[in-house]
């Protein structure tokens, strides 16, 4: 198991109000950049049918899984109603020297 802060990508790799995929040590994550340039990280797969959230749509603070439109607040991982009812796990993120670091715990 990996632990601690892991360098994921460059800050510029993610467009504002968008999401990318990050894989590390057999696990997959979704990294978000909000419209106001805050960065967040969650588990990569939707809790409904395991579709990758990096294929999804970021709008405001919501990531919407495009498979069946499950919605989560990507800042907290909170499931926002049908068809998802299980929250997403989130991870601390920091930006250092233009790099995104994610704390895998």
């Amino acid at each position: 198991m990996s632990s601690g802060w892991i360098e994921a990508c460059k800050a510029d790799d993610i467009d504002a109000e968008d999401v990318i995929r990050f894989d590390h040590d057999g696990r997959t994550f979704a990294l978000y950049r909000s419209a106001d340039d805050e960065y967040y990280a969650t588990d990569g797969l939707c809790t409904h049918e395991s579709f990758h959230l990096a294929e999804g749509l970021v709008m405001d603070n919501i990531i919407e899984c495009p498979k069946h439109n499950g919605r989560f607040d990507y800042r907290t991982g909170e499931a926002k109603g049908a068809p998802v009812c299980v929250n997403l796990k989130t991870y601390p993120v920091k930006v250092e020297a233009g790099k995104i670091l994610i704390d895998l715990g």
Partner: protein
Amino acid sequence: MSEAGIVIVGAGEAGARAALALRENGWTGAVTLIGDEPHPPYERPPLSKAVIVAAGELDPPTILDTARMRDNRIDFLPGATVVRIDRGAHRLALADGRHLSYSQLLLATGSRARPLAIRGSQNLLYLRTYAEAIALRRRLQAGMRVGIIGGGFIGLELAASATARGCEVTVIEMAPRVLMRGVPEEIATTIADRHRSAGVDLRTGVGINGIEAQDHRQVIVTADGARIVCDEIIAGVGAVPETALAKDSGLDIENGIRVDGHLRTSDRDIFAAGDCCSFPHALYGDRRVRLEAWRNAQEQGATAARNMLGAATAHEAVPSFWSDQYNVTLRIVGLPDTAVSTVTRRLGDGACLYFHLGADGRLMAASGIGSDSMIAKEIRLAELLIARQRQPAPDELENPNVRLKSLLNS
């Protein structure tokens, strides 16, 4: 008997979603959810796909388990059939003799497989419920010859699933092409090609004279004289809305239970949602439609719940539909038959989007085919363009380098 509350007849997607939405919107009175199957509410889309092809027998893909219903104080009556609505007394009669009072009622009775009425059709298999899916799964064994009557979504999804189980599949469709209803021809052609390359014997424009028995097997006799010997025959020839209860209680029926834009029936204390109802769609000039789709069932369940609590929200969600066959997903948003022209955007890897424009250039519908990781997000963005009644420039729609999200914000 406890105080009359809101009663929901039908524990499918629309009914289950409505029950939860009542709680999410602050309703503290009683909620009773009545289902005629023995299981807690479950999702139907996997029945024709994952449930058939899984290595083992899957449990029903539950929407609302017993614990969650208890947490939300949803009183669930499984295996119960409502036989009568006494609208004057606001009371339901159940087949087992019980009676139940309601203050407001939601009919979410769904639809059922349309029976195929042809000679010799008594042993055909159908798919609607989890029990039927498991029965199908047990019957479809490798090497079997399976005949599927109907080249609609259920027929084609089952053709893909039966092929995955190693069956030899023949699909017979009476219409000149598969997916005649609501699917653009370009997409239907791609899907048909995919089935043929998987080895499915797909015959379109072929009528059926009847089914005959022959040496413990069944034979489909087609109008053009062919005899197709099958170990099993499945009929997927559409669904009919479950309206008997509504009709018997004198509610207006028009291709389903007739509701207004707020999903209210001709009785002000009775609403309907999902496959069973037809409603005027505000985005399409109040054209009356009935949708058989998972998303619609969910969204209408939620809308009906809010309106039962006094919200008066019109149901304006863009119709949305998907089908997974093999490794290909087909998605449709909006009503393609309201469009007069189509613009194509090719995404590479065989993935394609089609934008269906109205006479005034408004985006009325969009459809896509390809791997879902290529098309799902794009179709979702198209859905937002449709909801906002945008008139995107055709050359921008065509150009894969123009991001759809940018058209949304422009």
